[in-house]
């Protein structure tokens, strides 16, 4: 099984994730899309690790998971805080930081 198949799959998932970030307004769904993109990257890392025959790729994927976990915790806390004040989870609502 060629690693290119996995990498192509990762690319497709990444693209879909980015579409999700761009078209969905709900902050939580956007967040899920980001997670999707991170996972796509992880898949590529794992595939490359296997292709090159060393475990460094897997270690990097592991770190990505750790960082993603931390990011989710903080990000969701922010979303909850915003929701509390604005009663909305739409990312189009907090747009005061502009011209």
């Amino acid at each position, binding site marked *: 099984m060629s690693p290119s198949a996995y990498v192509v799959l990762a690319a497709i998932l990444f693209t879909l994730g*980015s579409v999700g*970030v*761009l*078209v969905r*307004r709900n902050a939580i769904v956007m967040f899920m899309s980001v997670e999707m993109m991170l996972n796509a990257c992880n898949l590529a890392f794992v595939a490359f690790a296997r292709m090159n025959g060393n475990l460094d790729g897997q270690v990097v994927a592991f770190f990505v998971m750790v960082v993603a976990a931390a990011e989710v915790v903080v990000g969701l806390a922010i979303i909850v805080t915003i929701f509390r004040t604005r009663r909305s989870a739409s*990312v*189009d609502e*907090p*747009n*005061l*930081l*502009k*011209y």
Partner: protein
Amino acid sequence: MEVTTAAGGAFAYLWLLIGFPLAGAAILLFGGKRTNRWGHYVGTLAVVASAVYAVILLLALMGRSAEDRTAVQHIADWVFINKFSASIALQLDQLSMVFVLLITIVGSLIHVYSIGYMKDDPDRRRFFGFLNLFVAAMLLLVLADNYLLLYAGWEGVGLASFLLIGFWQYKNSAAAAAKKAFVMNRIGDIGMSLGIMLIFVTFGSVTFSTVFDQADQANDTTMTWIGLLLLLAACGKSAQFPLQAWLLDAMEGPTPVSALIHAATMVTAGVYLIVRSGPIFDQTIAASTVVVIIGTITMFLGAFIGSAKDEIKKALAGSTMSQIGYMILAAGLGPVGYVFAIFHLLTHGVFKANLFLGAGSVMHGMKNRENMRRYGALRAAMIVTWLSFMAATFAIMGIPPFSGFWSKDDIIHAAFEHNIIIGICAVLAAGFTGFYMTRMLVMTFFGKARWEDDQHPHESPPVMTIPLIILGIGSIFTGMALLFWGNIETWLEPVTGFETRELAVPAVVLEAITLVVVLIGAAIAIAMYRRSVAVEAPKGNVLVRAARNSMYDDAINDTIAVRPTYWLSRSLVWADRSVIDGIVGGSAAFVGGLSGRMRRLQSGFVRSYALAMLGGAVLVVVVMLLVRLP
């Protein structure tokens, strides 16, 4: 011209001449209010002291032989930069001596007169301080032994003139007149400073003796330029055409100021400069000719204005311009005329001071009103003033044996020797003099009383009339004294040179013709003003109106200088605003406008930013593929 005598004997304290009035000025101006009560006596005493010392110096000078009458006193080193050197050194020679006498003696009389004239002015102390300052600066001007120090005195008298014209600075007209005099003098001063620079560049020195010794070695063009620049300076200071406009306005100052500064001394500084620089003008026919022409023009201009003005002081100011025109004319004639220019300057200094002080006395008795059309029949009320005024009038008209006759006649004589047209002009101007002086005399002292109802004319106090009497006597005898007793021609000859030429017409005939012309002028004036004078000035013909408006000099100045300057400034401001600021402001506005549009991209929508990031990522991938793929 070799400096033959170091300062010694009576000359050892030459600086005291300047020192007395300078100390007086310092005491009065820095002394504050506590000098209010006695300050004017200090000021007068300082000038009188100078006058006494001047007389002592005169006697000492006369005790020497004719070649030995130049005393130089070096006081301090002043400017020494590489080759350029100028020291504070005083030079007393025959020319300076007569000026010193004129300044100190006439100055003393005017100081005494001012004690009475300024009696009720709350600022009398300041007035005397300024007067002393003026005397000091004027003495420095005539005693300087180099051009740079002369320039210092030159500016000093300009400053004093400015301060004194604007002495009643709460009057707008006085403040404006002071500014006008100052600005117009600056134009002349440009000529002065450029002239001094050119002298230094040409001769490597600014000391009189050094410069004059080398004067015949420089080329004609340079000398012409120096001459013209010095003439410009003289025009500014002596109110000669085309810088004459300030003198009439300068009459806003107190009358003693008009007498001392704007009649007897400061305005003759230009004549002094030209005569002093005689060796330079001797080298250049062109510059001398211009001097003569300027003198002639001013002579008529002043006479013309003096004939039409109704304010007594302005009429006198016109007369001053005219008489200085005579002097400048004479000075332009070269060695033929220098002596007579100075001679006329001295007699004029006396009788014009007399006239101004007389006018001041009249105004003093007439509640400071100047309009001659509201005078008339004052001879009964002011006998002393009337008599002294009349003596001075005869002097200025050149009636023998009054002093003006001797000096003016000599100038006319010299003018005829030089050029017959100039001579005829001089005679005609003498006729004008006869007209306007007689007009003044008749309008003021004769005819019917045309006073306003509240007028009670009275004679001035003795402190004012005594100087008038002395000056009146001076008006009669100065000419004869200088000519027969003082031998002014031989006295000045070592400094200025002197030569005579024979005329086709005998001098007596010329004198007779001049006298006839003067009398005709006087007769016309009597005929016009003896019977009746309109209280309101009649409209008059074009010439009268022009003369009444000082030949429209303000309008001309406005057109020639002021408006183009305004226009230039405005266009420069416009250029600054639109072009310079336009570029600066334009680029700022461009960036601002661009930013204003660019900031619309900052919509605040996170997803728009994310879209831009994705676009950037696509670009990066494209670039990477393009670089790597081949």
